[in-house]
């Protein structure tokens, strides 16, 4: 189906079902219960899951297939975001033009950066991209303040031109929408103790993510994808066979830059605000972590990695001392304080520490990321039929 093998179609369908039913899956605990702290099914986080999923899928096309480690991908995300917000300020609050322009602008910018950076490979390439990203960050933060709003960033204002939109009603604020359907609108479904939120913005982002995922499967399985893998395995050999790898790597770089721009545009569509720290080098590092954590060069890995990191950033970081004391209230006082003292450094503001430990564990024990973990578990259950099934379609990260 859709020009995919049976197995890939299966994967696409599973991902589609998971994303479309996410409001149910991510809210397994009833409202008001002690475990509700771990619910992730609220619109903002669901949107972040799929948007950063897109970002990581795009990054994986470059890193997973060609092996070129870009340390500056956040710059493309940021450029896409700025392009999108300017479309909203100048043209219309409809998100479609904003998203399309963000992809195009990020594509052009990545073409320029890629043109220069791809003259080198390995660590030099990484450093070059990092330099470009930090340069963009510094420009956005101070030098280009009139265009980027500096540290404060940009938001749609009541008195922006928005030449395609009708004038706002008195007292109304501009809201991102798609042909009138506002991104912030939600439909709440109350089932017993459970509350499920279906958000318009989330479903728009989810559909875009599915398209992006489909496109990435097609790229992975295409002759073009095969060329990119050839670049990764041995670029010199490719040169000797008379093939010039540069156009292929540049194309991969631009495609993954456009994915980042798409993610940036969607971020603005969901939450109409841009700040320069979106381009900071830690944001570039985050997407590398996502990809490696989930499994580089696998189709679903980056999405899983993005989900895990965003989950920890938003859920784990909000567990404060009070919450811990509530959980362990059943223990005798001394023991309670002791347990809280031990657990506390790993949650709340210590979520980075937990993330670091998980990352180390994954890199040491599961070089193929979360996907490898899944495969190992699956293998345990069907060891007997192993010889008949095809070998794992993924390859470990570098």
């Amino acid at each position: 189906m859709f020009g995919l093998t049976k197995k890939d179609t299966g994967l696409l369908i599973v991902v589609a079902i998971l994303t479309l039913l996410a409001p149910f899956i991510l809210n397994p605990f009833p409202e008001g219960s002690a475990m509700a702290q771990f619910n992730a099914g609220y619109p903002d986080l669901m949107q972040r899951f799929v948007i950063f999923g897109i970002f990581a899928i795009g990054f994986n096309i470059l890193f997973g297939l060609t092996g070129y480690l870009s340390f500056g991908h956040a710059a493309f995300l940021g450029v896409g975001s700025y392009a999108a917000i300017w479309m909203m300020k100048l043209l219309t609050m409809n998100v479609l033009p904003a998203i399309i322009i963000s992809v195009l602008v990020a594509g052009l910018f990545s073409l320029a950066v890629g043109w220069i950076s791809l003259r080198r490979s390995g660590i030099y390439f990484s450093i070059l991209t990092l330099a470009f990203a930090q340069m963009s960050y510094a420009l956005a933060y101070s030098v280009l303040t009139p265009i980027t709003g500096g540290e404060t960033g940009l938001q749609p204002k009541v008195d922006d031109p928005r030449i395609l939109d009708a004038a706002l009603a008195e007292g109304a604020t501009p809201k991102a929408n798609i042909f009138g359907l506002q991104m912030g609108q939600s439909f709440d479904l109350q089932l017993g103790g459970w509350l499920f939120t279906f958000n318009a913005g989330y479903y728009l982002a989810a559909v875009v993510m599915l398209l992006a995922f489909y496109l990435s499967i097609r790229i992975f399985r295409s002759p073009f994808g095969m060329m990119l893998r050839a670049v990764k395995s041995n670029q010199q050999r490719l040169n000797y066979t008379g093939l010039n790898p540069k156009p292929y790597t540049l194309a991969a770089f631009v495609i993954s830059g456009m994915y980042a721009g798409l993610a940036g545009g969607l971020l603005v569509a969901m939450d109409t605000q841009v700040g320069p720290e979106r381009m900071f080098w830690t944001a570039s590092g985050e997407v590398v972590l996502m990809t490696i954590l989930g499994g580089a060069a696998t189709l679903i890995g980056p999405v899983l990695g993005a989900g895990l990191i965003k989950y920890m950033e938003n859920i784990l970081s909000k567990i404060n001392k009070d919450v811990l004391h509530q959980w362990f209230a059943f223990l005798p006082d001394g023991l309670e304080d002791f347990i809280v003292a031990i657990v506390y450094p790993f949650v709340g503001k210590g979520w980075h520490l937990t993330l670091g430990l998980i990352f180390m564990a994954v890199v040491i024990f599961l070089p193929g990321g979360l996907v490898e973990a899944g495969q190992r578990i699956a293998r345990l259950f069907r060891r007997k039929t192993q010889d008949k099934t095809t070998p794992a379609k993924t390859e470990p990260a570098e």
Partner: protein
Amino acid sequence: MTKTDVTRRGVIRSGAVAGAGLAVPTIFTAQSAAAFTNEPTGGTVTLGFNVPQTGPYADEGADELRAYELAVEHLNGGGDGGMLNTFSSKALQGNGILGKKVEYVTGDTQTKSDAARASAKSMIEKDGAIMITGGSSSGVAVAVQALCQEAGVIFMAGLTHSNDTTGKDKKANGFRHFFNSYMSGAALAPILAANYGKDRRAYHLTADYNWGYTTEEAVRTSTEAMGWETVNAVKTPLTQTDFSSYIAPVLQSGADVLVLNHYGGNMVNSLTNAVQFGLRDKQVNGKNFEIVVPLYSRLMAKGAGANVKGIYGSTNWHWTLQDEGSKAFVKSFGTKYGFPPSQAAHTCYVQALLYADAVTRANSFNPCAVAEALEGFQFDGMGNGPTLYRAADHQCFKDVLVVKGKENPTSEFDLLEIVEITPVGQVTYDPSIFGGNLGTCNPGA
């Protein structure tokens, strides 16, 4: 060539499908019965404390969180009541807010707009927070304020000093108790003129971002009005840690005052560099060379150590103030945590109380009712003397403290001495000078 059959049944069927498709968006407009976002229905009300727990302002954030915990304790009737006893409005009874017990959720802004908005959004969407407060950076304050305006909750800004927060980026749902760059400049200039004379030549080093720009402009305008001349203004990158290369040209410029529009670690480093270069021992134009730091905080003074001695700056509040409100707050904060509160802690504590008080006076959690209760509200007993929440831009107007690094500190907390309490009349400005549009309040839902 494809053959298309148009049948009656087919037309009806596709018409029905299209109709259903068009009707889909209308189910999204079905709103819940609540009159405003996150209307508290049970016996509790949730406030969202969004402070930097990691990143460059983590110290301020930690102190803000301590202040919020203290405020919640006092609102729920615990502890010694702190400023509730000195606050001029007696609406709060120590039984929560409108009889509902105050609960809170915390989040980490990381001093990044994106992270701050994500954290505030999760408080609003997931935890049902009715009000968001906190923060230690103007960029974050502006970003979160805009979010709260969209979502329909009240935002009570924490430490944010840029003019923009209640200037060009002001919002109807956002309120700021802290003072701003303009007030710093207006309060400092007369003191500087009185101590250093009216014919000084100033050299500015300015942190290269919005807050730096507004502070530089404020200090420039008010000192030039006093007769000073601005020789040069140089922007320094925010990430700079060694300012030697920026300090060296100062002496050649013929300037006799150096103004450091820096905050936090930037100020600690630039001031230390300037003192190490021996600037303060120099004589230029027949006068002693002087250094000025427009925005001071105790945490910064601590970082710069002995270098702050005798250096002028302004601050929102200081724990050595001797009015009843300040004494009550310092006492209950000190009893609970063992050290005096910072100005960030003070402004956050006051903001939490002011919000609770406004809800009680309005007898409603509805953001529009709360905003109305805060607008034009005059109060006293919160440590800054008589204070007005101006309706036109949601900025608090109160006395501003001009402080000086203490020559002989008696403890590690006793680093600043109050030189003058600038009366509010001298720092009041016309709300229209910064532009911006307050809009109308948004109750959400």
